[in-house]
């Protein structure tokens, strides 16, 4: 009873905290100075049409590196917490149809994923979204129990190398240009092209690969390791 009252007070209190924000909220009309700088910079300096991508990969690249790290930590952490055992594995009595179609489907999904992250600087979407798509492909494999062995060490290898490559490009930024994670280590190219915007697509692709492998790792660990 006391607890219910306390919960009520807590929730009402939270409402009281947020109420002034709602009542004082004004929809903005204009970009603030910083955002405007981003938009201008993305188009003119980095030649990246997708401003969000340029913010993610370049301007706030350190965040993204951190974010990848968080996901990596989650992978490792889940692995540490769950002692994977074979019997825990999810078994779905996959029909033959599913097995065959899934192989085809997976290939298509993979292609889609790769497309998404390579075009991250041009269109909405990018490394994360592409990575998830790839992971969902693996998920399908996992569920359909096709005989395709998901070799864990390869997974780790891909995961590690893509991460290291990401960091390496960042370091190249220090060595070759002015700062860590500067995309100008590669030529900026022409605005709107696939191979443009310096290292942005490369980084986003690496992110895509890394996120994909990490998410797959999590799925595999949660679903039951081989």
């Amino acid at each position: 009873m006391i607890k219910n009252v306390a919960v009520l007070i807590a929730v009402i209190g939270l409402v009281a905290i947020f109420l002034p924000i709602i009542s004082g909220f004004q929809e903005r009309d204009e970009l603030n100075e910083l955002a405007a700088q981003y938009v201008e910079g993305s188009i003119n300096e980095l030649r990246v049409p997708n401003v969000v991508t340029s913010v993610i990969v370049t301007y706030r690249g350190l965040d993204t590196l951190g974010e990848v790290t968080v996901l990596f930590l989650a992978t490792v952490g889940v692995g540490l917490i769950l002692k994977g055992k074979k019997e825990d594995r999810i078994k779905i009595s996959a029909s033959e149809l599913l097995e065959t179609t899934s192989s085809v489907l997976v290939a298509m999904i993979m292609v889609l994923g790769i497309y998404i992250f390579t075009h991250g600087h041009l269109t909405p979407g990018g490394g994360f979204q592409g990575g998830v798509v790839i992971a969902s492909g693996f998920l399908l494999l996992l569920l359909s129990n096709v005989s395709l062995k998901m070799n864990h060490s390869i997974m780790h290898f891909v995961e590690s190398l893509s991460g290291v490559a990401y960091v390496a490009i960042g370091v190249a930024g220090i060595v070759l240009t002015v700062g860590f994670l500067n995309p100008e280590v590669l030529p900026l190219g022409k605005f709107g092209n696939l191979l443009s915007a310096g290292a942005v697509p490369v980084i986003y692709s690496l992110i895509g690969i890394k996120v994909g492998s990490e998410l797959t790792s999590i799925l595999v660990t949660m679903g039951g390791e081989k």
Partner: protein
Amino acid sequence: MVSPIYILILSLSVGFLLSIFDRAGRKFSLTAFYSVLTFNVALMGDWLYRLAVLHVPTFVINTAGFNAPVSINLELGVAEALVLFLANLTGLMAAVYLFDKFREGKVSSLILYLLLVMGVNGLVMTQDIFNMFVFLEILSISTFALTTLKKNLKTLSAGFKYMIAGGVASTFFLLGVVFVYYFAGTLNLGFMTADQFSGIGLIALFLLSVSLFIELKPFPANGWALDVYQSVDSGIVSVIAVVNSAAIGFAFYKIMPLLPSSFLTAFGMAGIVTFFFSNMMGLKQENAKRLLGYSSIGQMGLLLASLVFTIGIEPAVRYLIIGGLFLNHLLSKAGLFWIAGIVKEEKIRNWGVLRNNKPLLVLFGLFIFALSGLPPFAGFWAKWEFVKVLVDSKMFFVLGTVLVGSLFELIFLFRWFTMAVKENADELEPMASPGFSRIFPVSFFGILAAVVSFGAMRCFYGSNWLQVLPVIAVLFITLIDSLPSKVKGFISLAAVAGYGYYLYPLLTGNIQLFFGVIFIAGSAVNLISTLNRKNQSKGFYGFLLMMIFSFGNLLIASTYLEFFLSWEFMTLSSFLLILRGQNAQRASLMYMIFSTAGAYLIMVGFSFAPALSSTAALILSIQDVNLPLISFIVLAIGFMIKSGSVGVHIWLPEAHAEAESDVSPFISAILLKAGVFGLLLLGIAYVSNAPSFDVFYWVGWIGVITAIAGAFMASFQEDAKKLLAYSSMSQVGYIVAALAMITHLGWVSALYLAFNHMMFKSALFIAVAGIYYRTRTRKMYEMGGLISRMPWTYMTVLMSIIAVSGVPPLSGFGAKWLIYTAFITKGWYLQAGVLFFASGVSFLYLYRLIHTIFLGQLKYEHQEIKEAPAWFIIPQYIFLAGIMAISMFPNLIIKPLNAIAMHYFDSSIQIDGLTVMSELGYWNGNLVMYVTMAVFAIPFIMLLLLKGKTQKVKQFNIVYAAERPESPQTTHVAHNMYAHLRKSLGSLSLPRVQEFWNSVAEWSHTLGAFFRRVYTGNGQTYLLHIILYIVVMYAVMGGQ
């Protein structure tokens, strides 16, 4: 100059690659792992050196080739470098500590650990609040996962609670971040100013700051943290408690400039509240790691409060306070958690097993002392300056809370320490000897704590080597501790002599010289009795020298801080000496608690005092200081605690009685005089600048009541040392009362009595030590008739009790004569009446002492007992010689004392030849002596001439109502000797003070037990606390 960004780069690359390395073998992954951690430490050490010593400007790292605020930038200034150096160092050491786990466990734990440390580095350096969020999450997730390094139900459920709390806190932090962005248009701290936030913008700041604050575990929204501390592996906990907290605390520090003062005050108060309640709840805690958890949380609260309340003061002092508290917490808490991991016993009661491993026990003590804010550790300096800041800014409520909280902390820490030193551990499984990887970090931090403290002291205060002599003494004796105790004893004697020789020219004032004789010469003579020690007595001489040197240093201390430093050294060393006694656990703890309470008051008193202009010794320069009234009051109470005044005396009998028998003389005869010295110091200040309120009038009454109360309690003791202890209390009551008169005669009598007391009480305690050495008992009723077996000791006791009682012709009468004359001249008539009563009562206990031990019937088991060893007899007779000398020639002492007192007052006595004359009367000690000798000789000769043949009879040959007594036990009147007096005094004889303090203790424990009930163990309730906490903080801050 390697950019600190490489810490992130290297950690990440190696982190990503570790699992691949691991395939090649654990050796490789471990090498890489430790290399990176070492690299971090080295890099930060290098940067710290550059920034702090070479004064290179703050290093800014812009990422992505753009300047802030467009891109994220990292900054490395002195503060960052310091925090990160220490955090990385702790990280490395904790990793070393966890070496076995890392070698055997999964590689995942290595990765998590490495990235955790990286997260800390990033969190501290980043200037971007969203980036902060990311690093916070890196930190949190790796920590969550690492809590399961030791996987069982407890760690899992604790980890889950931690995640729930952390998850919600970071959600709020994220909200805060975007709201800040919404209002400020930037995420970079360097580009925000406080005036960008007003109205609802403050809510953004509120969310940002309160969520970080929640992560810092404020009371009561911190149950999750306690569970984690209690259950999770010690190595990881040390990281959580120290490294994580440091990083998050630093993040909070970075956003502090944005916060309006009402927020800051609320946070500071919340910190204080946390500190207070955590420590109060710690009182009731029995589980070692949870206890450390309470302490950690408390320390973080204090650190936060110090961050807030030191805003605007001189930066150097601010860094000293914050840095000192932080360093102290970091080193000692990490060390203690590691030790807790090595000991493995959960209940602090079982920590006696630590005695198997002496070095570890020493380190344990070291950390406990450091954490309690004792010198020379960093916390001491920080606390001193912090108190000063609080006083200067008139935050008395905060001050009081901090001090009471500190006292609580000290109580549970020292209880724990005394348990480790004393508690019986025979039935427990002996502790396994820990491996090198576990011992090394603990030792390293122990040494670091000591070295850094010393360094800090030198740098900041520019110290005189004499001030650290007490510590040097301990170290020196530790080096030669394997020698036999006699050799060490002689070395110590030589050291004291040398110290005295060195000190002598520094004692320019008569008053210093006088106390120098009491402190140094008295100690030297008392030291002789310790030469009787047969066993190796490890540590004993170190602590003893520490204590003696700190006595001496009190005399020459030229600043408040030096005085207080020596005072605390004295407290610590005497505590350790008392603790050596066989059953001294409780006694020493009580001593420490009261002493510390007194020390806090002294600290506060000095903090109120105006700055000193002179560089002379404090005791000489204090007369030019205009102390405020509050200083007088708190200092008086502080010093009276040390001198065992009534009401705060309950430590005294226990400490005297339970200390080793050759330590008790030091405590009674010399240590109590330190309190007197303090009061005298205060008195001198009073003479020249008396405050409006007559403090010393009340001090005088307290002294008088102490005298009578002590005398009564002494009369009812069965334990010889307790009797002497209460007698000391009573005698010091006289001294205090006499001092409090602030008159010439009063001071002469006080000093006279102090000197006299030093001699006769030393002699008595050493005599009792000799008796205890032979009989192995302190219970007086178990003795009797020892006069025939120990005549030399009897003689000492006889002479001493005559000197105590004030019966002419010995020196005691001089004291009585002076004191009553002084009282009557002063006009304190009723006080004088009470003192008369006290001196009457003192006959009761004196007679009891001598009768029950030496007279009456000899016990069977003592029939063959020998005289006490010469080492006990020699100092007794040295003191007796002193007593006889000043009895025969009182001018030997009256004249110098007259001169001392004349420095402050006009003389009120005349010395005409051998006669001392006061306004009221006169006294010729010399003539009295001769007359007494004569009147003694006459009956004696008469008796010898008149009496018939003397027939010595057997023990039981007495006139006993037709019966012949069978055993000495039934015939010796000793037990409860003054039953009738106790009966007639009724309620007056009840131990009310004891009861009062017991109930204080009980109440604080009960309150602690009550408040800790908020920690129900239910993760959901903890979450509710967090939400309610946020709501309440909002209400508090909104209300202001």
